């Protein structure tokens, strides 16, 4: 459908090459290509505006303008800036040393991948020698607890269902259950909710107050478009999550939303999810994500 950004920039600069030294106008042409590439990758348009403005400044140096390889220079600047914005270090789970059980709570929109991610986290932590408990606190979606129970039994992790009626009560009871059964981590799966659904957002806050999570992770679908900023902004304000799991990156979505999440909330991406199976949770690498967003 479209060439990679490098090729596009190369084309652009080749056309300008005849004129000798590049000018600000030439850089503007390149910046338009970058803007398009980022929009195609679903980076939010406001984030794109700011990002392109700051890249432009860096590109207007003699080093770039006089260079024999301006396209490569521009791409390098864009890539570095993008990587830096996405977070410069690998982010991991932070668990409290002095509290048992630790609690991890998952939140997000409907169908984003929370229940699957809960099982994946449990599988990961079990492999590290922990003894996790999965708490089925989605009392809204049909058969949500069955889904978690099935996944739990596949990976040999217990699932607490409680009365299956009141999410907040199930959440509180799951902590007692973990204490009784010596589980050192509780992973709380919650129902999908829209950020504009006041009642459901209040429920998320109530679950949070009941279990006092050490980490709240928001699960975000890699295919999400421009609306992601509205969603994560409200979740950040209301629930104040600590980090993001980006799901469904096994497809070919560019995942520009990762940049928007970072730019808008400052929250790190902690994991990426690469499939439906329990072992498909991977650590986030900002440099790989930057290349993916740019289609490199």
């Amino acid at each position, binding site marked *: *459908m479209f060439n990679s950004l490098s090729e596009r920039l190369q084309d652009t600069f080749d056309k300008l090459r005849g004129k000798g030294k590049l000018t600000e106008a030439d850089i503007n042409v390149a910046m338009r290509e970058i*803007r*398009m590439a980022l*929009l*195609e*990758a*679903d980076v*939010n*348009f406001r984030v794109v505006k700011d990002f392109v403005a700051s890249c432009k400044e860096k590109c207007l140096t003699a080093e770039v303008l006089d260079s024999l390889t301006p396209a490569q220079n521009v791409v390098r600047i864009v890539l570095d800036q993008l990587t830096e914005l996405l977070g410069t270090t690998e982010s991991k789970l932070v668990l409290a040393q002095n509290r048992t059980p630790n609690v991890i709570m998952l939140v997000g*929109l*409907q*169908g*984003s*991948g929370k229940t699957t991610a809960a099982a994946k986290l449990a599988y990961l932590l079990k492999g590290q020698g922990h003894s996790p408990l999965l708490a089925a606190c989605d009392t*809204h*979606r*049909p*058969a*949500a607890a*069955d*889904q*978690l*129970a*099935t*996944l739990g039994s*596949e990976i040999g992790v217990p699932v607490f269902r409680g009365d299956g009626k009141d999410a907040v009560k199930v959440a509180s009871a799951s902590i007692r259950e973990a204490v009784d059964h010596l589980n050192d981590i509780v992973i709380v799966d919650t129902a999908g909710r*829209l*950020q*504009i659904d006041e009642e459901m957002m209040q429920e998320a806050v109530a679950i949070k107050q009941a279990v006092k999570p050490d980490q709240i992770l928001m699960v975000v*679908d890699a*295919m*999400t*478009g*421009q*609306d*992601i900023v*509205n*969603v994560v902004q409200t979740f950040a304000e209301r629930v104040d999550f600590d980090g993001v799991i980006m799901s*469904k990156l*096994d*497809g*070919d*979505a*560019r995942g*520009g*939303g990762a940049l928007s999440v970072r730019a808008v909330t400052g929250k790190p991406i902690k994991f990426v999810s690469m499939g*439906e199976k329990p072992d498909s949770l991977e650590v986030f690498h900002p440099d790989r994500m930057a290349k993916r967003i740019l289609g490199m």
Partner: protein
Amino acid sequence: FYMGGEVDEDFWEDLEDTLVMGDMGGELAMRVADDLREQAARENLTRADQLRDALAKRLAQEFRTADRDPFEDVPSCVLFVGINGAGKTTTVGKLAGRARDEGKSCLIGGADTFRAAAIEQLEVWGKRAGVDVITRERGADPASVCYDVVEEAEKRGSQLVLIDTAGRLHTSSDLMRELAKVVNVTRKRCTSMPVTVVLVIDATTGQNGLAQAKEFNDALDLDGLIVTKLDGTAKGGIALAISDQLGLPIYRIGVGESIDDLETFDALDFCRALVGEGK
């Protein structure tokens, strides 16, 4: 050249931003805005509300209208396909409830034998709707389920058959091949009524939606779309891009998680929301 009108450069920038923000895609948004500029000059439209109205009307015409409503014109067999978590199972449940309200005899097929508790989820929906679900155990061949469902529907003389399939990414060639088999078996087996294949797409989907739709269309020869989760703040502009490029009608829209949260598609309403109201 918009002297005297309320329209200035800010208007055009704001309009383009609104379209991009609605997930229409940067290039399509730019093209649409440029076309509108020409139309404005030609027809001497100078007020922002006039322009937005003209644009909404023109965009609404881009949608192909359906020759046939597969949920009204019975007997009919419909397969629901799409990527993971788009809203297929929920949509089947809602449509079954609607069919039952209208007095149509309906049967649900559960051909998602893959995802954990997909069958249990569909069975809850079947109970809510008061419609029987035909399925097999987890791990069973989904094409065989379709065979069973069609056979049972013919035996009962069911008017509407709704078949749920497992979510899958369009990039997974194995799973796409499996789905093509499911669709082909159903098309071959089901001779007593037309078979419609509907792609379910989440309104929050960004530009990847186009690649999704193309791959599903290439593999399955789609008949139409259903857009879900329009009750959120996402405008679903990707549906316009898909409908425009692949010439697919939108049969219904999903506006919530309850059984009644399904509406017929109104192109002009949809486009008015996409074009925005301005500041």
